[in-house]
Structure formats: C-alpha cells, structure tokens
C-alpha cells in the first residue's frame, strides 16, 4: 500500500486552534507523524518584559481562553512571593473556587469535543449546555464568561455577596446532577467504549520519559497532582481525591476527566463551605524587589510552571511560562504511530490540546 501524507492543520475540523501535523498513512493505518507549532505564537514572554506587573496580569490572562484564571493565579502568586505579601484567606478561597470551576468547564468543553469527533453529537450538545451553568457562575461573580480578570496582585478583584454565594451553591448542585448523567452515558455507551478502549495505550515509562503531566499522566497510573503534592493555600487545607486509572488508553483518558469533573464539583462545595470571611485584597507595592521565584499550579491540563525574575523595577526582568499542553504534545508523535486513521481524532481529543497555551 502506498504511503501518503495527510496534513492535519493548520486549518482542520479537528483542531480548535492552528497546529500543523503531517501524518503518514498507508491504507487505514498511521505510520508516523510530525508536528509544527508556532501558529499562535504571540511572544507573550517578551511582551511581558515591556509591561508593568499590573499590566502583565491582563496580558497573562490572554495566554489561553480556557484556563485563563490559573495562569493569572500562578503569576500573581509569583509576584506576591517576591513582594513577600500574604494574600488574605478569603481571597485564596475565591481563587481556588474559580480554579475548580475552570477545571469543570474545561473538562466539559473537552468532553463535548471528544464526543463530536467520535460522532456522538448529542453528547456534545448536552455537555456544552451543562457547561453553561459553570459559565453562568463565573459570569455572575466576575462579569465575564471566559475572561474573568478575577486576580490582581494582592488578592482578587471582587467579593462574593450572599446572593452570589446562594447562586453558586444552586448551580453547583445542578451541575452535579448533570455531570452524574454524563458520567453515566460515558460509562455505558457501547459505541464510545468501542471507539476508545484499547486505543493508543501509553505506558508509565513513556510518561516519565517524556515528562507528561496532568490527566494524561494520571490516566496511565502516575499519581501526581500538584494540588496535593505542591499546594498553594488553600489547597493544603482542603480534602479531595486524586483519581488515577491504570490502563492509559484513550478510554482511561476519557473516563478520568469525567471523574475529575465530579470531584472538582465536590471540591467547589467544600470551598464554599469552608470559605472564611474577611478582606479580599491587600495593598501591593508597584515596584517589586529583586529576586526570582518559581511557582507551579495544577491547570485543567496539568502542571503550569512560572519562573519570574525581577530586578527591582516595576517591570519583570524575565518571565518564563511552561504550559501543560507543551509537555503533552511531545508525546503526540509517539502516540500517533501504529493506530487507525479513524483513531486520530480520538487520540487528539484525549490529550485535550490547548495550542494557544503551548505557543504563548
């Protein structure tokens, strides 16, 4: 059978963001793949050096649309560590709440996309309908569905009123029921299982060799979650389960995100229950003293690392961002070898790409 190369991207129905892949196939089997990133490279790291820290919070938010809050949180944590200021506990809890809601909405978004690529459009429509509940909460408290501008250096920009807290509790309850239904469908739908079970299994050794993070790693049995292992407050005071699955195939990657969504909703309830009263921000000086810091967070897709160095002025001297999708993408050519052509969407959806994050 002759080898032909099909291009996937930069424009392709499979991809939400531009990414160029050249996939060699023979008949219906994939032989290999090569990647090219950089279509959405905006030079955020260099742009950040020309703006003040306060302006950078807004710049960092636009690295990614789906996980914007966790990026600004990690950045603010870095700057606050350099400033040596302590964020009030209520602000920490609000930050954690938004992070968990973001995880919920990101996983529901991803689940819809996976279903659509596998041909289950109904699940796609239903999950995105449920996702609106999470987005309604975020809009209700911050004014924005995807870009919340919730963080500022020293705390959060807004406080939660009584009505808002009631609204959050109500929507989280509704979401729990809906996500329970979605989980039911995923576990019992035979066609979805047939399409994903046994597809592109990834071993633990491969995960460790490629330094893969996030749900992809946990779906292969690697028990790492930065919320538990390297927490920033309030995660060290919160009780939650870290879910791992042993198989490492596309089915495990599907199931794990659905289970994580449910766990995140429980965590949201715990956060609302334990949220203390108090101020939501402290005054932060504009000029940041000299120093360097590394902060890590668990974004919906895995580990986000920020390295920040300041030279005493009000603009950073060096900012380095490593997003989880970049780590997962290095595994992609390996995952794409020796599978069916029809499994390509399943594998791609299983890694939950966020190219804007990877490119910065």
């Amino acid at each position, binding site marked *: 059978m002759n080898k032909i190369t*099909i291009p996937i991207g930069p424009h392709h129905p*499979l991809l939400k963001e531009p990414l160029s892949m050249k996939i060699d196939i023979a008949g*219906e089997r994939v032989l290999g793949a090569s990647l090219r990133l950089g279509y959405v490279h905006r030079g955020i790291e260099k742009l950040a050096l020309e703006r003040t820290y306060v302006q950078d919070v807004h710049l960092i938010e636009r690295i990614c649309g789906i996980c914007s809050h966790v990026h600004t949180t990690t950045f603010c944590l870095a700057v606050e560590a350099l400033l040596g200021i302590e964020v009030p506990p209520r602000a920490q809890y609000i930050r954690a709440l938004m992070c968990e809601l973001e995880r919920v909405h990101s996983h529901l978004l991803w689940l819809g996309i996976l279903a659509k690529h596998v041909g289950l459009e*109904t699940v796609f429509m239903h999950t995105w309908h449920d996702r609106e509940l999470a987005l309604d909460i975020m809009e209700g408290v911050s004014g924005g569905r995807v870009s919340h501008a919730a963080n500022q250096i020293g705390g959060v920009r807004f406080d939660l009123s009584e009505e808002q807290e009631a609204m959050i509790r109500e929507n989280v309850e509704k979401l729990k029921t809906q996500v329970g239904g979605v989980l039911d469908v995923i576990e019992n739908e035979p*066609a979805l299982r*047939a399409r994903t079970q046994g597809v592109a299994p990834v071993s633990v050794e491969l995960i460790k060799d490629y330094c893969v993070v996030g749900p992809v790693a946990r779906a292969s049995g690697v028990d790492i979650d930065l919320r538990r292992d390297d927490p920033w407050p309030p995660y060290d005071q919160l009780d939650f389960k870290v879910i791992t699955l042993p198989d490492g195939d596309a089915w495990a990657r599907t199931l794990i995100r659905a289970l994580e969504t449910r766990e995140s909703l429980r965590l949201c309830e715990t956060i609302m229950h334990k949220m203390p009263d108090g101020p939501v921000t402290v005054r932060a000086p504009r000029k940041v003293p000299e120093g360097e810091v590394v902060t890590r967070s668990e974004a919906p897709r895995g580990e986000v690392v920020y390295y920040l160095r300041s030279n005493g002025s009000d603009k950073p001297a060096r900012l380095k961002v490593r997003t989880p999708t970049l780590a997962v993408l290095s595994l992609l050519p390996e995952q794409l070898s020796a599978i*069916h052509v029809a499994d390509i969407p399943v594998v791609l959806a299983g890694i939950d790409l966020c190219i804007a994050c990877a490119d910065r």
Partner: protein
Amino acid sequence: MQFIKGLFFLLIFPGLSFQVVCGLAFEWIDRKLLARFQRRVGPPWYQPLADLIKLFSKEDIMPEGAYDLVETLLPLISLSAVLTAGLYIPIAGFTPFSFEGDLIVIQFLMSVPTLAYYLAGIASVGIYSLLGGGRSLLQFFSYEVPLLITISGPAVMAGSWSIAEISRSQLDQGPFIVFQPLGFILAVVGLIGKLKRDPLDIPSASSEVVGGSLTEFTGAKLGFWHLVMNIQAVVGIFLLANLYLGWSNITSPLPAIGIFVLECLAVVVVLSATSAVFARLRIDQLAGIGWKILVPLSLLQLGFVILMGV
C-alpha cells in the same frame, strides 16, 4: 394527451417537483428532530430551501487537476438515477409506472449515487476526497449485501418483485413488519449505510476526512449533491414504508395518504433517533459487523420467510 400525462408524472408528481419538495421536507424534519434530541431549537421550515438556494448562488471552484466535466456530470447522473427510482415507488398506493421486477431496478438505481460518490472522490484529486471515496466503497461492500438479502424477504412473502404488488399484498396478509421485525431492523441499518448517516457516516466523517468525497465541491455542484442525498433518503423511506408497513393501498385516497404519511414519519423518527444516539463506527468495525452479524442475520430472516411460505 398521453404525452402531457407522462410529462406531469415525470415532472410534477410523483416525479421531480414532488420528490424535491419531499426531500426538503425530510431534511427539515430530520434536522428539527435531531435538534430536539439535543436540547436545541432547530431550524425553521424554510431552512433547507434557503440552504439550497444559497448553495446554487455560490461560486463554483475546483482544485487544479480535477476533472471538471466528470465533476459536473456525476451529481446530475446521480440525481436522475434517484429521481427515476422514485417513480416506481407507490405513494399512498398510487404509482403510474410500476412493473414486475421494479424492486431490483430500484436497488440498482439507488446504488448509482454511491458509485458516483466514489468517482467524485477520485476525480477531485485532493487527499481527503480520495480517502472519503475509498471509505465509501468499503462501506458499500459492508451494507449492500445484507440489504439486498433482507429486501428479498417481503418480495418472497408477497410472491412478487413489484413494489406496488408487495405493498398491496399487505392488505391481505398484514404489515410485513409483524412477520419480519428483524428484516425491518436490518433494512433500516442498510438504509443508514446507504444514506451515509450517523452512525455510518464514515465516508464523510468531518473530523477525519473533512468532507469526504465532497470536500472540494462548491456551489451548484454541491447543491445537486445535497439534493441527491435528500431525495435518496426520501426514496429509501418510501421504499421501506411500502415494503414493511404497506396498508396504504386502501381505496379511499385521503385515509391512504394519511396512513402513508404516518408510516413515512415513523421511519424518519427511527432514522433520526439512531442518528442522535449512536457514535460513529470505525470502518473496520463496520466491515466486521456487516459480514459477521448483518449477513448471517439477513440470511436467517430470509430463510425463515421461505420456510413460512412453504
């Protein structure tokens, strides 16, 4: 006078105009049902017509190296094939052209669009078209054989290869779906494969081959393909309604039309529901199911029918 009558049958009813209107109506019902299954509102009634008009008004572009004459002729040939097939199927008992053996002719005519789809993929030269075309042929081999075997069931039971006769004999024997429920299910599966609908829309799976054979088609050519798909669906539904549900041959026209409409709607609901509920199969899974499950079951059903008649 014969000439005018013939022209009327060909162009108005049950020919061109009637089938186009039915095709658009089917598309609307299908999309609306699907939307309701998905908690959406769905399009207004004139949407399919608007889409068709829009397609015909768009610019016609073909990639360099594609065979332009072939590309233009293929959808037109397919359209004439399905329109001709529709002429032989009784609409509420009325058919001006039926003859003994028209069931076989219709099966042949209905396969023309599938082969044309494959050729369109080859002639379009693009990678995705080639892949889509190849897949459509693979899919054809998986569902066509069980479909042909299954369709023979009602023919054997009615003792005739004329669809009008098969439909009429159900007035005496009762709807064939009662005796051949398995056959009905297999025929629906075969129809889904023929129409390339979810879960068997493998040749045009947008996440894998973008648009399948029709990736490079634009403008009027795509509009014609759209029409072909819709009319093929309508003809298939009429066929199934006549073969398995029958009962629309009673003498008074109004109840006949009513029953026929209800039967067709029932088939449409079944098609839309399966479209909403199932995920897309992989081509190797389909081939496996086609030959390991569908063919034996259809042979079983046919054997059962023959034994019953004996």
